[in-house]
């Protein structure tokens, strides 16, 4: 049995009855929606038309929200309905990144994720969902897609139907009849800062992605005239998390390279590195927890784990990495040396700590920018930048001997990192969404931060200072190197926040 929906936009009159009936059935709070109606207009007077689409959860057979949910709060029922249990949700919002359809929101009453659940509680008593029965024109057809005699199956077989973003591989079970194609291509639509009969929330789609220079120039191009807000789920804390995690991961990766490859054995590698790894892993964990809408439930990651979620694996990796750092510190203190095997293991765990995020972000199926194949390598290089920068600063302060190695590593990783950035932004984009997001960074609303902070402060200045410092000795060189390292760290932080914002800037619905 596979419950699905057909929404017949030829019948739909855009009346919002489904929206309100759903709100009533589930007592959905003001400001969020399980189902909503989007309006667009096309053409020029008098050849102008308005089109509607009812948007909601697609009850995907291969639901990315279920895969990414770290606590199995989201699950696919045997009858095909993608349901959720808000008592298991920790409010990590990763499902909102995974869903390519903007179907999920955080319920302000419980601070947990919610979405259309096909009125599973009604289905269990043999009743159709609330939106179905209210619809004046019977435009919403529910039913079993596995039953060839059901009306929905007959409709899907006999009529031309469209699904949203089939290329995402989510196998959606919501099919549209007669929908205007532009409604399903949100990134190609233009919009204003207001709608035809409502305000637009200031936190909704903060950036005009592509609109300002793309379709808006075409007279009569498709434009959004009514929609509901979908504010970006992740903000500064997510960027900060990426940053502290880079420092943490880099600390032992760099130290391991210094000890195993270059034979460095000093306070920096022995004590500072594991301490930095521990402190910044701890900070990373705290930020992660603070970013949860339900921080009180953070331990559900361990008690209710979903092993398909990279959030869970990330949690284990961070714990393992912390253990390695503790062992490193213990060895340094108690046996006064770090065994090579431990260094290698720590380095591998450091790479895992840095890199697992690429797998997590890859599970964020909605965000195409984050699907970059360079992202994994870029994260590792970011860790090297952060690790070498931090160790160099501390090393200089405590007078360590390995500064020149660290400076060289910092310079090399900055160059490598920048090459990856350029690759991510300028290599032919795998999709229109990626192109728009990249354009936002390189030439759009984020470009000043990108070129000014991330590139000049984070790349040009550190490289220049490191080059100057390489010829200097003594205090001046040390100061220049500290400034270079700080600039590199600052630039990295800027890049993380740009990456987080740009990834979420392309509208999903």
């Amino acid at each position, binding site marked *: 049995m596979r419950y699905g929906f057909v929404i017949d936009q*030829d*019948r739909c*009159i*855009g*009346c*919002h*009855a489904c*929206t*309100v*009936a759903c*709100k*009533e*059935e*589930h*007592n959905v*709070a*003001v*400001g969020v929606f399980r189902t909503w109606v989007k309006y667009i*207009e096309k*053409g*020029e*007077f*008098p050849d*102008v*038309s*308005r089109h*509607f689409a009812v948007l909601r959860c697609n009850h995907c057979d291969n639901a990315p929200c279920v895969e990414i949910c770290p606590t199995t709060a989201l699950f696919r029922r045997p009858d095909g309905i993608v*349901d959720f249990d808000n008592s298991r949700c920790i409010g990590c919002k990763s499902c909102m990144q995974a869903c390519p359809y903007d179907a999920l929101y955080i319920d*302000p*009453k419980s601070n947990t994720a919610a979405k259309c659940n096909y009125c*599973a*509680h*009604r289905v*269990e*008593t*043999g*009743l*159709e969902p609330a939106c179905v*029965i*209210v619809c*004046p*024109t*019977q*435009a919403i057809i*529910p*039913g*079993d897609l596995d*039953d060839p005699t*059901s*009306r929905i199956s007959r409709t899907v077989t006999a009529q031309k139907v469209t699904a949203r973003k089939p290329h995402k591989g989510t196998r959606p079970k919501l099919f549209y009849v007669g929908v205007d194609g532009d409604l399903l291509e949100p990134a190609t639509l233009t919009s204003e*800062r*207001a*709608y*035809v*009969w*409502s*305000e637009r*929330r200031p936190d909704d789609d903060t950036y005009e992605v592509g609109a300002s220079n793309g379709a808006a120039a075409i007279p*009569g191009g498709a434009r959004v*005239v009514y929609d509901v807000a979908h504010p970006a789920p992740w903000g500064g804390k997510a960027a900060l998390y990426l940053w502290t995690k880079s420092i943490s991961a880099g600390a032992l990766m760099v130290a391991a390279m210094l000890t195993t490859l270059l034979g460095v054995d000093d306070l920096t590698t022995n004590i500072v590195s594991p301490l930095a790894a521990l402190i910044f892993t701890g900070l990373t964990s705290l930020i992660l927890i603070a970013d949860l809408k339900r921080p009180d439930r953070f331990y559900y990651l361990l008690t209710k784990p979903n092993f398909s979620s990279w959030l869970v694996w990330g949690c284990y990796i961070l714990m393992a990495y912390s253990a390695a750092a503790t062992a490193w510190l213990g060895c340094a203190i108690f046996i006064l040396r770090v065994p090579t095997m431990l260094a290698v293991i720590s380095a591998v765990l450091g790479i895992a700590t840095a890199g697992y995020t690429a797998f997590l972000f890859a599970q964020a199926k909605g965000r195409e920018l984050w699907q970059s194949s360079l992202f994994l390598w870029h994260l590792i290089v970011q860790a090297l930048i952060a690790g070498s920068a931090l160790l160099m600063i501390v090393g200089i302060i405590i007078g360590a001997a390995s500064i020149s190695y660290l400076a060289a590593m910092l310079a090399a990783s900055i160059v490598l990192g920048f090459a990856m950035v350029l690759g991510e932004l300028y290599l032919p984009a795998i999709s229109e969404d990626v192109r728009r997001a990249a354009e936002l960074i390189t030439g759009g609303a984020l470009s000043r931060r990108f070129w000014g902070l991330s590139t000049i402060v984070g790349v040009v200045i550190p490289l220049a200072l490191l080059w100057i410092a390489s010829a200097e000795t003594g205090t001046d060189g040390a100061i220049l190197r500290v400034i270079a390292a700080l600039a590199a760290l600052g630039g990295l932080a800027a890049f993380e926040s740009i990456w987080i914002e740009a990834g979420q800037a392309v509208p999903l619905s």
Partner: protein
Amino acid sequence: MAQRNDDSPLSPAARNLDAPAGGLASFPPSDRWSDWEEYDPAEWPRKVGRHYTLVPTICFNCEAGCGLLAYVDRESMRIRKFEGNPLHPGSRGRNCAKGPATINQVNDPERILYPMRRAGRRGEGRWERVTWDAALDDIAGRIRRALVEDRRNEIVYHVGRPGHELVYNQRVLHAWGIDGHNSHTNVCSAGARTGYAFWHGADRPSPDHANARFILLLSSHLEAGHYFNPHAQRIIEAKARGAKVCVIDTRLSNTASKADYWLSTWPGSEAAVLLAICRLVLESGAYDREFVRRWVNWEEYLRAEHPDKAPTFESFERVLRELYAEYTPEFAARESGCDAATIVEVAREVGRAGSALATHVWRNAAAGNLGGWQVARALEFLAVLMGAIGAPGGTGVGIANKFIPAPPLMPPGPKAWNELMWPREFPLAFFEMSFLLPHFLREGRGKLAMYFTRVYNPVWTNPDGMSWVETLSDERIVERHACLTPIWSETAWFADYVLPMGHASERHDLLSQETHAARWIGFRQPVLRAAMERAGRRFNSTWEAHREAGLGEVWEEDEFWIELSWRIDPDGALGIRKYFESPYRPGEKLTVDDLYGWMFEHSVPGLPEAAAKERLTPLQYMRKYGAFLVEDSVYNTHEKPLNDIEILESEVEEESGIVSRQGAALGVRIDDRYHVGFPTASRKLEFYSSTLKEWGWPEYSVPCYIRSHVHRSNIDRGRGEMLLLPTFRLPTLVHTRSGNAKWLTEISHSNPLWLHPEDARRLGVATGNLLRVTTEIGYFVDKVWVTESIRPGVIACSHHLGRWRLRADTGGERWSSALVDLNQVGPGQWRMRQRQGVEPFRSGDPDSERVWWHDAGVHQNLTFPVQPDPVSGQHCWHQKVTVARPGADDRYGDIFVDTNKSREIYRRWMAMTRPAPGPGGLRRPLWLARAYRPAPEAFYIR
């Protein structure tokens, strides 16, 4: 049989609520409505069952009267939700957004639960709680004095959405012997009603959309209006079956966007377009000759206007073609701005549809323009030509699809005529000249001893609201004002009493609407009372049940009128009390169970039998199911033959064929057969109206095109003039009644000015910029929405939004109103400025702190002068305005009004009237329908 998964729509209503094999059902089976268990979605996926008793009632947001099914928790006796009532023949279980939003209105933390009395000056905003007893005694005493002193015209009941949709409030006012009903209709549908009434006596069409081949709408019934949900269902069914739809509407409505043809006419030119289509149909011979020959009063027309011509149908056809020769598609295109080829194509579609032509105009052009009533007349002309009147898939006559159960003991019409509502200047006005009341009162035409407003907000809704404020503030001309309302409104602020009445689920009413080719009744009932009574409790009155349910002291009107009438005439000496005594228990006070029980037993054919089958009394049946289908598939009622006895006892006028008995027309003879015909003077469809001719409008005696007051030639765009189209609805709102529904307000809360890009360029503005719109009496400042969906030269602004309140914490719905300062800056000069828009607020509903919108819209109606059409009496809403960039001091929402100018414009429009008396010293033609019809002798000016 499965009621869903079956491709055919439910018709007429679900008789069987079973799920299809292996599938899901739409509704719980009705035999389990008294105890239905459902899982609590808030607890889901834990399966926590809740038990509900399902009580049917009727939505109270628009006039469609759609069925609702209230889920009342059996344990807490609270309403969990409202779904549709699958047994309701009109709405068939489905609702628009406003149906489920009823729960917001019921749970609104801002609603009024106790009666209030003004404590300070009127309009000052100081209130104190008062007992119902004190309020009723005071009001009853004033009414009694007015009746005893024969000041009966000083009692006026002014209503928006009546609730008592049929004759039940007429019963009250006529029992008091007053002509005291005042409605909102002349700011609404009077224009269309007039146009229809001059054709067939009845004032509404009943399009049979479901079976139509071509649907021609001057309305937006896929998103609004009466009857939005019932009509939308059937229009879409027809479309799915292959019917084509044409929408004539200046702006691109949602309805227009679903149409096959959209004609964006210059406002006011619609009759020209329709008559051009009529001409094409006449020229091509595609019209239904036989229908026109039999049913149109062409003989009367030829006799009166063309006595020289042969009295044959062929000669009428020739005259017709000559008469409408000037309405070429090119002429219509010039007037309307629409493409002539499209007009011709639409005419072809009309021709192909034959009699399956469903048409409708209700407000739209008929409510916007001087002469708008001729738009309805021109549209109906087309339906008549095609033989669509009463045909399957055609355009029925409203009364054929309505059923009005007779109440016990109906009082006769009063021997009074209230000129405050029915002034001599407007003998043909289809309803009361309600929106002129302030001007009449201030001119010294009378005063009001007792004025009721009910679900009506004239200060906000009517044009020239500041004249209402000035009048309602004057305690000498409005001595007492009681506002019967569940919520605060701009008008309630200027009342002496604010008396809380129930929402949809808190009152009794009987409804019957012409939603399709059938007759049905729907029963609105207070669901908490009904649920508690199912559980074995008994209440004498609804307010006692409400008190027990924690609903404060919310009354229902039926009981209010009964109680008030008893206090007006406690000993029965005035002859009033007898109408409010139980038909079952002589001398005892009437209860709602008595009233509706009696009607269901005596006045609804088939209902007692249907109830008996289920071993229920008729009242129990209606309380259980909420609706009853009296007759299905009602067509061609005018063809109904007179029976032999009727014919034998009657006289037949030889020339006209009119059959009458004791002076009352019964029917008409056509080709030697006797039919009931239409309720017109001729009993036929009146192409030619001798009434219009006799009452001073010979130039309008046949359907024609009247140039609107906002005709293109009156608007000089070079001088910044534009046409403001200020009347359009949004799918989620209904006037000032939905501001308390948070889920609706969250979707729609802005009414920007729709402006075509060409005009935006000329004015140098973009979306979000401000414009000042200046009318003849003031101006308002609103923001711009640049859109291709409006005709260049026209600006459009939805009429729902712009609610305001004068106090931060009371006097208006904080979900939807702006806090404003209202200052008189000179004699008659008023300035309003928004202090703040909508803000989150603390209340019993946590959602009130989640309010994220700030816009409450801009109140444009304040700046409109009254513009009464001299024939229909309809307020002509469209405004000629000057549009300019705002001044340095202008802010969003600013309003300025000069009521001195209002009076000037009022006098200018009054000068266009052609007052009574008409033939025989009449105030109004006797045949022409009139709401709350007085006794015949009142029709004569003494």
